[in-house]
């Protein structure tokens, strides 16, 4: 099943807010906010986030993708995951 970027972004936002205690009224937490530079997700949290994305959207994230600029914002992650979830086999996603 393919997922839309918006539905993925909403799910990821919910996950981050719940798991990493981001306040509902934090104006800096947007879908374009840098999750790591902004301090929303740390290195352990990142592993949880990847595991969440892989299990929820049935994709496997390649190391290249983990380190890409895309994988630093909710919008970017959603775009990458939506692309991966639409691929037959969904073995792994490349950054290119």
């Amino acid at each position, binding site marked *: 099943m393919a997922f839309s970027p918006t539905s993925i972004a909403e799910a990821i936002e919910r996950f981050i807010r719940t798991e990493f205690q981001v306040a509902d009224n934090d104006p800096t937490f947007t879908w374009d906010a840098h999750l790591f530079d902004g301090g929303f997700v740390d290195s352990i949290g990142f592993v949880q986030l990847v*595991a969440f994305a892989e299990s929820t959207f049935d994709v496997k994230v390649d190391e290249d993708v983990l380190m890409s600029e895309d994988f630093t914002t909710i919008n970017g992650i959603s775009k990458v995951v939506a692309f991966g979830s639409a691929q037959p086999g969904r073995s792994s996603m490349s950054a290119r």
Partner: protein
Amino acid sequence: MIRGQTESVRTLEAVGLESSLRIRNFYWAGDSFRPSLQLGPGPLGVLPLKLLRGQFALAEAADTRITLVRDPLGINKLFFAIHHSGRVSIANYLIDLVRRGVPGDAIYSVPAGHCVEVDFHRRTLASSRYFTAQIGDTRGECSLADEGAAIRGHLEAWFTRLSDQFHSRKIFLCLSGGLDSGLIAALAARYFRDLTAYTYCYSQNGDEVSEDATSALRLARALNIPVRLVTASRRDVLDAVHNALVYGQDWRDFNVHCAIVNELLGRAMADDLPRAGDGAPALVLTGDLMNEFVADYSPVVYRGQEYYSLPKVDRAALRRALIRGLNAGDREIGVFGRHGLDVIQPYGLLADALLDLPTRLVSDEDSKQVLARSIAGDLLPDWIFARTKVRAQIGTSRGITGILPVLLDSGRDAAWLRSTFRQAFGIDNDAFLSSLIRGGVYRSLPMFPTRVGTDGFLAH
């Protein structure tokens, strides 16, 4: 064949590759192999990538193209930087590129199990995965006893090969007193003659022997292996921090603290080598990697604060994360390598078999003991299977001693390690560290970089 480093550098520079590789490669492809430890770029053109296994960082230059390949698990590190002139600098150690004048933001890593091809003529960079770590969770009926027997077979086969290949070397064995290194010790004792076990022990007064070290000494006696107790004081531990950071290539406490143990052991081994007198090179064998393959880690609480935290994910995801995490940090190969010591991690040699263990078989509290007994019940004394697991950097199950409290109580906490790492590598921007290692992976380069720095190195 073992090539000299100087020769490799001179040959490669003519075709645009500037090599600072100094960790030997150990690789094979398929079943017809006779792996040896080699320094140098490796015969990439004749190797079938999909079959390639081992611990290696390989590089090749041909015409206008540079090809870089890193081992499946990321055991050996492979950093690179692209100069606008067409020169690609490569190194196992980040610090070697920094010392060559490469700025941090121009340094990238080849991801584990990947091949990176840089084409200067076309100005393209292609990164392709040739290995995917497949955990055997879709396998049908199987038992720990059967899996243990199969793993034992793999280990015996590997020790036969290792003893054929390295029978003339001194074998230095890292013996923690736990199951993983104990099993390697038991096999090494059967296959090697010139074998010495090294055991780390924190002792402020020089006269206490930790629970872990006591177990290691007892096991060494049972296996009839000579053992050298490497006792470290608070001062020794603190003195080892710098090298642990620089050559362990990581600032995260769980890796730095382990790297300190290995730095202390590596120093003792390097000190002992000249005294041995016969000039035979040493080979270090360790019991590392099993903990990653079966996700046998747990956090430690000290003064109400949790350390060595793990991501809250299910065990299968944790196994994948820990295995992926081997990509970054160099607490074994890098730290011993700094002392000129070659390292082989036998559990890594049977990575395919250990990855293939279904997670359900290794999910119980005592799975590790049951698995270890099924692998080596006949090789190890009974008491070792009943021991409570202890982290080497803690040393006892009765409280928190050793490296963790020594560092914390002297103000060397996570923030200090991070800051000191930045200083050691000349990194001004703290946020850069968050992009250097993310999710257990060093930063990689998705496409040919176009931004030219003032020093001529290209960045993305």
